[in-house]
């Protein structure tokens, strides 16, 4: 589950729990507040009554009658005053029934005895319980609404904030991991965030990538330097052999030996040249500024290579249905790519076999399919055919794939071309080149 989802879920559930708890407690809460307030109210009334009695005297109210009673028309509140004989002092608040003019009503009653002169009096102040709880429901409703609104507001604020808070994480993953291509050539910039944890993660990733980049760079530099350093001695040897071959007193035997040496030297030269080429491609030393017509490219390759078809009597068919131009590419490299693939298709073909080149659009790709009727590649070997110096057990006379396919892959990577290989032993191999649409015209 995503972190934001988890946080969202947690925030929502915890708020929901709070709301439920509050709403379930609300009636008890409101009731207790109401009853406390009533008690307080009755006490206040008592103070006021006592104040006026002290001022005016009891007789002012009793006026010779046995008791005094006052109530409003709805009998919601009443005040009663009467002399009592007992000497016990009572001062309580209780809920009890009173009969007021034939109506029996439930009252919250404050009962208070006091002494005035030599007589004891009993004061009762009552409030109907109905009036006490009359505000409970609206109060509960308003409290619930206010609470829910507040919770909703904080919930939204929380969600927006967590999203904002976690945004750098997404950015770090996208900019540092997903959208970066090995070996991380471009410099990466730290993500702007005030969260130190993310800064830590970001910095760790940046330094990790720098290490990878450095290690890769060193290997690349080594290949380039080593190949370069080998060129001069090879050059000297080659020229020496060439000069020797035309010396007048060289016997036929020596001549032949010299040619063998030359051949071996040539092989060394090709290997070093291939390594240098790969390292230059990986160093991005080739400009990608050409627009290359696929049709012309194949025609040029075939012009150079078609004579090789004759020896094995291989038939070749070029069936390009689309007039496609590959933009932002390097013509020489694409030539080499196609050349190597066609050359392999010839080299590993059977006598009187065939090679077919076709093209089509597939999803967001333009694809060129090169299939041959050759000896095929064992499926176990397919993942490693692009590795440098990989040799196939099946290839005739111990001739390996050498560096040809490594070069193919370097060029393809450099142009963001995807290569699919499928093969059936003894019946043929198909190389599919998938070009992203943005380079196709």
């Amino acid at each position, binding site marked *: 589950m995503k972190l934001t989802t988890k946080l969202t879920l947690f925030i929502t559930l915890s708020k929901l729990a709070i709301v439920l708890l509050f709403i379930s407690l609300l009636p008890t809460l409101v009731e207790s507040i109401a009853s406390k307030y009533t008690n307080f109210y009755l006490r206040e009334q008592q103070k006021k009554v006592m104040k006026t009695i002290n001022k005016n005297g009891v007789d002012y109210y009793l006026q010779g009658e046995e008791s005094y009673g006052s109530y409003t028309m709805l009998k919601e509140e009443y005040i009663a005053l009467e002399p009592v004989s007992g000497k016990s002092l009572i001062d309580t608040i209780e809920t009890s029934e009173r009969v007021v003019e034939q109506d029996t009503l439930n009252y919250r009653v404050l009962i208070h005895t006091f002494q005035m002169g030599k007589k004891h009096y009993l004061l009762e102040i009552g409030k109907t319980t109905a009036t006490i709880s009359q505000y409970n429901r609206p109060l509960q409703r308003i409290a619930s609404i206010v609470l829910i609104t507040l919770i909703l507001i904080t919930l939204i604020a929380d969600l927006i904030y967590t999203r904002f808070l976690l945004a750098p994480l997404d950015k770090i993953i996208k900019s540092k991991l997903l959208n970066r291509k090995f070996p991380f050539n471009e410099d990466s910039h730290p993500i702007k965030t005030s969260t130190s944890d993310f800064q830590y993660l970001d910095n760790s990733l940046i330094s990790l990538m720098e290490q990878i980049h450095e290690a890769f760079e060193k290997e690349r530099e080594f290949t380039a330097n080593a190949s370069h350093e080998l*060129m001069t001695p090879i050059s000297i040897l080659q020229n020496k052999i060439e000069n020797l071959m035309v010396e007048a007193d060289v016997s036929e035997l020596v001549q032949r030996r010299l040619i063998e040496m*030359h*051949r071996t030297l040539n092989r060394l030269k090709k290997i070093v040249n291939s390594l240098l*080429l790969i390292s230059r491609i990986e160093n991005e030393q080739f400009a990608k500024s050409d627009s290359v017509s696929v049709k012309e490219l194949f025609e040029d390759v075939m012009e*150079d290579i078609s004579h090789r078809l004759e020896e094995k009597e291989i038939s070749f068919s070029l069936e390009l249905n689309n007039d496609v131009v590959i933009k932002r590419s390097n013509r020489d490299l694409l030539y*080499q790519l196609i050349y190597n693939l066609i050359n392999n298709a010839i080299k590993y073909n059977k006598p009187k076999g065939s090679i077919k080149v076709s093209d089509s659009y597939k999803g967001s790709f333009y694809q060129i399919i090169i299939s041959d009727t050759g000896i095929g590649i064992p499926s176990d070997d397919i993942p490693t055919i692009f590795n440098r110096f990989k040799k196939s057990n099946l290839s005739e006379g111990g001739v390996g794939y050498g560096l*040809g396919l490594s070069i193919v892959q370097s060029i393809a990577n450099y142009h963001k071309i995807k290569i699919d290989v499928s093969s059936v032993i003894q019946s043929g191999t198909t190389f599919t080149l998938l070009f992203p649409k943005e380079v196709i015209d």
Partner: protein
Amino acid sequence: MKILIVEDEKTLAYEVEAFLKKAFFICDLAHTARQGLEQIEVNQYDFVLLDLGLPDKDGLVVLEQAKKNNSEAAFIILTARGNIEDRIKGLDLGADDYLPKPFSLLELQSRIQAISRRKFGIKNQSIKLGEFSIDLQKRVVSKEENEIDLTRKEFDLLSYMLLHKNRVLTRIQLSEHIWGSFVDDDYDSNYIDVHIKNIRKKLGAHGQVDWLETVRGVGYKIKKQE
């Protein structure tokens, strides 16, 4: 023709010198950029073969300086660096050709020849070869006004062998010429034989081609009596 070889790798310089002397060029050697510049100032050269990785200065500096001093010489850059920027820079500075190391001496000679034709206006009349005549400028082989159709590579091979006539050329030397430093796995290819067969077939239909000899186990040569 006078040639200056600016190359710090002495063994290599001597081999190039030995080869060019045999081809009747007059050669001087320089092993540093300073020496090279001094020699260019004092002498008139037709060609300067210039290595780029010199111990004291970059070879491109020599080229720039020499061009400033109005040197008439044609410059061929010989380098193991082989990166594209150097090549472009060299040609921008006025170099006439660029040959990546390791190179074949025969290839070097053919480049010198090509520049001579182009730069010094040496117009080879069409060269006689048996019953055929070959025009290197127009890249045409003909017999009595009849043009014979050869492919680009076939013509390249023929003219290369013609340039190095009476010398046996190995298959490697021939394929190196037509493929250049193009990276091809088939270092041991006998595809040259196919081309030679085609040349013989095409020209043979019009006349004798016994001047094109196969030297068993070695390669091919054009035998030509002047």
